[in-house]
Every structure is written in structure tokens, then in C-alpha cells.
């Protein structure tokens, strides 16, 4: 066995052999990575693609070709995923909507993580009355059903992209705060924190340089799950007419606009929904791996292992 070991490693470096050896989990991982990259690239470069004439403009209407089915080719035009009730190209609308959905998801997650981590960190580290106040505050927000609270605030403030993201962050920061606090409670008693204390590190240093990096893995995993949740909520709010509004495009709004044609134009319902589902699925299946990438303990383990295996590497 040992004699064939070395050439075998060489063989496995080729992509085809790697693919053959890959487990389903790996295939899902790379599939998700490719899908998300393609989606983000398409969303970012859409204005360019439209200007180059490689893609239909998401606003361009063609009332002669309303609700035409996928693959319709007429008068030199070709609509891969069909057209909507105003004759706009469905594929182009879906990519335009991706810009909003991804941006709302990202902004929501960033806001709720910043608020949640700060509050959870302070509550878990200091304890006492500060912890009681902060935790009761999370109870207050967690007891109001998220979507009802979001609808109520959007009723007061009005819809639009930034408001939707802020409102969704308002309903989700308590979850981040609770997870952070629970993690801080156990980290606070660990050896390396006590050692930093003994070495004379200040409280701010301990919180942000010792404890915070160890929170990254759980925060990143939570953040990816919260991203899909925010995206799904945005779709729901826009479907109800309180999120992204016409004439802008959003996957939820596209589904709402397709409702009257539910018995005649299946593609208007299938493709926007499929976009939401595939994006959520891709992000969900990436979350575990991404968490491992930012784990400082795992990383130092890997560093130690590679040092031990190849002493000449350093």
C-alpha cells in the first residue's frame, strides 16, 4: 500500500479524480458556491449587460408579448423565462430583483449582528442589572411576532429598501443578542480569559480581543441562517405590498403580481419562487463550512498540525 501511496496523491490532484471522490456534501457545497457567485455577478453587472445589449432591460415593456411562455421567440426577440403581464423579460426582472433581495438580506444581517453582538457581549460579560435590563428588552422584542412588528413599523415609517432592512433587523437582533450572551457566559470562565485577566489586560481588551474572536464561528453561522430568514421575510413583506414596491422588482412582489395569472402563466409563479428557494438553499448549505473558516481555535489547530507534519515549512 505504502509504495503506491505517493503516485496516488498526484492522481487525486486532477479535478476529475477529485470530483469522483467528492461526497454529496462537497458537490452541494461547490454547487451552492457556483450558484451564488453567478447570481451575485449577474446582479452586479446587470446594468452593464443591458448597456451592451446582451440582456433585456428589466423595465422594457412589450405589450404585444404579454405573458408569453418561456422560450418564446418572436420578431427577433427571445425570452428564456418568458415575459410578465407587461411583456417585460422575466429573467431580467428576476436578476433585477436579486439586487434588492440580496442587499436587503445583507443589510439586515449586518445591522442585527452589530446591535445583537454589542448588547449580548455587554450583558454576558458584565452580568448584574445590565444583563437583566438587556435580557428583558430582548424578551419584549421576541414576544411580538416578527412579521406583525415589521408590518406595524412599516405602516408608521413607510416601505422602501432601507426601511425594510432596518425593520427586519429590529425584529431579529434579540436572537443574535441571546446567542452571543450564552456564548460569552461560557467563554468568560475559560482559562485563556482568566490568564488575560491575570496578565493585567483591561476589560475592553478582554471583551474585544479575547472573547469576540471566539464568537466569530457561531456568529457567522447564525448570520448566514439569518440572511436567508431576512430574504424570505422580505419576500413575504413585498408579497403583501409593504416591502419593495412597484415599479421596482422583488421576488415577493413578482409573485404578488403573478397571482391573477395563476391559472394561465405558471412560469411567472415558478421562476421567482425558485430563485428565492435556490438562493436560500445555497446560503443554508454554505453556512457550516463558512463557520469553520473563521474559527480561531480550529485555525490554530490546523496551523499546529501543518507545522508538525512539515517542520521545514516555516
Amino acid at each position: 500500500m505504502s509504495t503506491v501511496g505517493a503516485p496516488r496523491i498526484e492522481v487525486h490532484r486532477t479535478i476529475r479524480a477529485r470530483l469522483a471522490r467528492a461526497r454529496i456534501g462537497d458537490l452541494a457545497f461547490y454547487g451552492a458556491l457556483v450558484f451564488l457567485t453567478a447570481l451575485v455577478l449577474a446582479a452586479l453587472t446587470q446594468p452593464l449587460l443591458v448597456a451592451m445589449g446582451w440582456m433585456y432591460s428589466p423595465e422594457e415593456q412589450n405589450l404585444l408579448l404579454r405573458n408569453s411562455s418561456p422560450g418564446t421567440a418572436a420578431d427577433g426577440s427571445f425570452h428564456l423565462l418568458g415575459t410578465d403581464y407587461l411583456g417585460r423579460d422575466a429573467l431580467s426582472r428576476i436578476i433585477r430583483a436579486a439586487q434588492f433581495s440580496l442587499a436587503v438580506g445583507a443589510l439586515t444581517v449586518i445591522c442585527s449582528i452589530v446591535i445583537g453582538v454589542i448588547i449580548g457581549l455587554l450583558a454576558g460579560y458584565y452580568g448584574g442589572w445590565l444583563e437583566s435590563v438587556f435580557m428583558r428588552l430582548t424578551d419584549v422584542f421576541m414576544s411580538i411576532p416578527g412579521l406583525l412588528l415589521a408590518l406595524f413599523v412599516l405602516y408608521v415609517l413607510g416601505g422602501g429598501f432601507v426601511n425594510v432592512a432596518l425593520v427586519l433587523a429590529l425584529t431579529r437582533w434579540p436572537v443574535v443578542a441571546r446567542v452571543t450572551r450564552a456564548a460569552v457566559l461560557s467563554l468568560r470562565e475559560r482559562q485563556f480569559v482568566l490568564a488575560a485577566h491575570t496578565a493585567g489586560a483591561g476589560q475592553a481588551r478582554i471583551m474585544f480581543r479575547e472573547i469576540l474572536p471566539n464568537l466569530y464561528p457561531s456568529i457567522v453561522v447564525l448570520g448566514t441562517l439569518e440572511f436567508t430568514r431576512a430574504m424570505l421575510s422580505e419576500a413575504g413583506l413585498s408579497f403583501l405590498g409593504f416591502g419593495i414596491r412597484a415599479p421596482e422588482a422583488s421576488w415577493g412582489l413578482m409573485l404578488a403580481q403573478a397571482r391573477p395569472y395563476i391559472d394561465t402563466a405558471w412560469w411567472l409563479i415558478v421562476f421567482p419562487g425558485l430563485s428565492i428557494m435556490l438562493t436560500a438553499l445555497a446560503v443554508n448549505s454554505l453556512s457550516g463550512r463558512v463557520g469553520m473558516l473563521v474559527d480561531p481555535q480550529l485555525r490554530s489547530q490546523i496551523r499546529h498540525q501543518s507545522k508538525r507534519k512539515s517542520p521545514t515549512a516555516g
Partner: protein
Amino acid sequence: MISVIVRRVLESLTVLLGIAILIFLIGEVVGDPARLMLPMDASQETYEAFRRERGFDRAIHVRFLEYLGGVVTLDFGDSLRSGVDAKSLVLRAFVPTLLLAFTTQLVALLIAVPVGTVAGMRPNSFANRLTSTLSIVSISVPTFWAGMITISVFAVSLRLLPTSGYGALHFFVLPTFALALGITGRLAEVVRASVQEQMTSQYVKTARAKGVPERRIVFGHVLRNAMGPVLTVSGDEFATLIGGATVIEVLFGWPGIGYLTVGAIEGRDLPVVQASVMMTATAIVGLNAIIDACYGRIDPRVRRRR
């Protein structure tokens, strides 16, 4: 024991007070209640007259105390549109929402617990990986999209079930399916992970060494110990359902809390919106207190720690 109950009740009351303050802040400090109730194109004179008539021009602390008194006596004022008091509108809407929440939760548990247990008992098996994969897929599906697809297949094309409405059992099928899909997936994964963790614990090894049959190990010991996380997640899901599966209720014309709230917002009916948010939040605070009590029943360690 009594002091524990008293402390829990005080805690719940604090949270309820916090919710009342939050709703007041959003509706009457961030927003202008008169503007929120009047039509968008109301004239300045109408606005002034309405403010005086409703007392919105008084000092903020006076209004807050009055509002708080209203919350305590469940008096949120009358609906602007129907003239009925907001409280009874919300109470009436609770019935369809609760019925849908119960059937959804029941269906989800009936599927998720057996599937998750079987998968958790066999780590590294095909069933185990399949459960995890299906779980991720099911939580990625937007509920209202699942609702639309099933409407177009079973109601529009096959004409087997009603497209929307509230009534006998067959009206429940499509909304329950749409709602239960994601919840079943999430619960099955929790059951699977929890059972799998329990199967590696010391007491299972001891029981096996004593020759206890596998079935008795699972049904007698593992399931009971694995139920803690399942209870937590079910409670969260149920709380969300009580808040009205808003989008599904609107899609299916289901006259519950979510449907009522969306209609009230569209009709600029602030008293009904405040009443529905406040009263569902109260129901959820109560539910959480009950769930906490349940922990003591299923896990003796929690009981002793108190």
C-alpha cells in the same frame, strides 16, 4: 415553589409593560396617530379637528397614562372602519389563527418526531443524511410560494380543494401543508440531532451492556431526554403561528390575526393594529411561561435547580 411562580409572573408583567411602551412609542411618538388614521389626502383643517376630537394634542405623558389604562382594561378604542371595539375584533380573529396553528403544529410533530428519531438512531446512514438534506430544502421554501404552487395544482388544475376561504376540514388542507412544510423540516432536524446526541451518552451504553432491547432504550429513555430542544423549537414555531401566519392567511383569505392586521393597516385603522399586536404579544408571553413550566415536567434536573 410559590416564590418561583411569583417571580415568573412579575417577570412576565415587566415584559408586558415593555411591549405596551414599545407599541406606544412606535405608533404615537415615532408616528403621528392622527396622520396614521386619516386618509393620506386629508386637509389641514380635518387634521386639526381630528387631533382635538381624539385628544392627540394633549401632553405625551397624559396620553401615555390613558393608553396604559386602556391596555390594562383591554380597551383599545373602536375600529375606525367597522365601529366595533378593537378587542372583540381581535378575539374573534384568534379562533381561525389558533385552529390553523394547532393543526399545523400537530401535522409537523406527527411527521418530524418519527422521522427524526429513526434518522437519529442510525448515524452515518442514508436515512440520516436524507433527513438532514430534506430539512435544509424544506426550510428554504418560502411558505407562500408553496401555498401558490399547491393552489395552482390542487385547486386550479385538479379542482380537488378550494382555492381560499375558511370552513370545514378541506379548507385546512392547503394552508396547513404550506405552513407545516418548513416547520416539519426544522423540527425533524432538531429531533434527529437531539436523539443522535443522546444515543452516544453513558446511560445508553449502560442500558445496552445490561442487555436492554434497543426499542426500550429509545422509547423508555432516549426520547424523553431528547425532547428538551424539541419543546423549545416547537414553542418558538407555535408562537410565530399564533402571531398569525400573515402571508398564508392573506393568500388563502383566512380570517385570522394576520389577515385582520394587514386589512387594518390598509384601512389605516390604528386601534385595531395596536390591539392585535398587543394581544398576540400577551398570548405569546403566556405561552412562554407555560413552556417554561413544561421543562420542569419533562426534565427533573430543571425542577431541582429551581
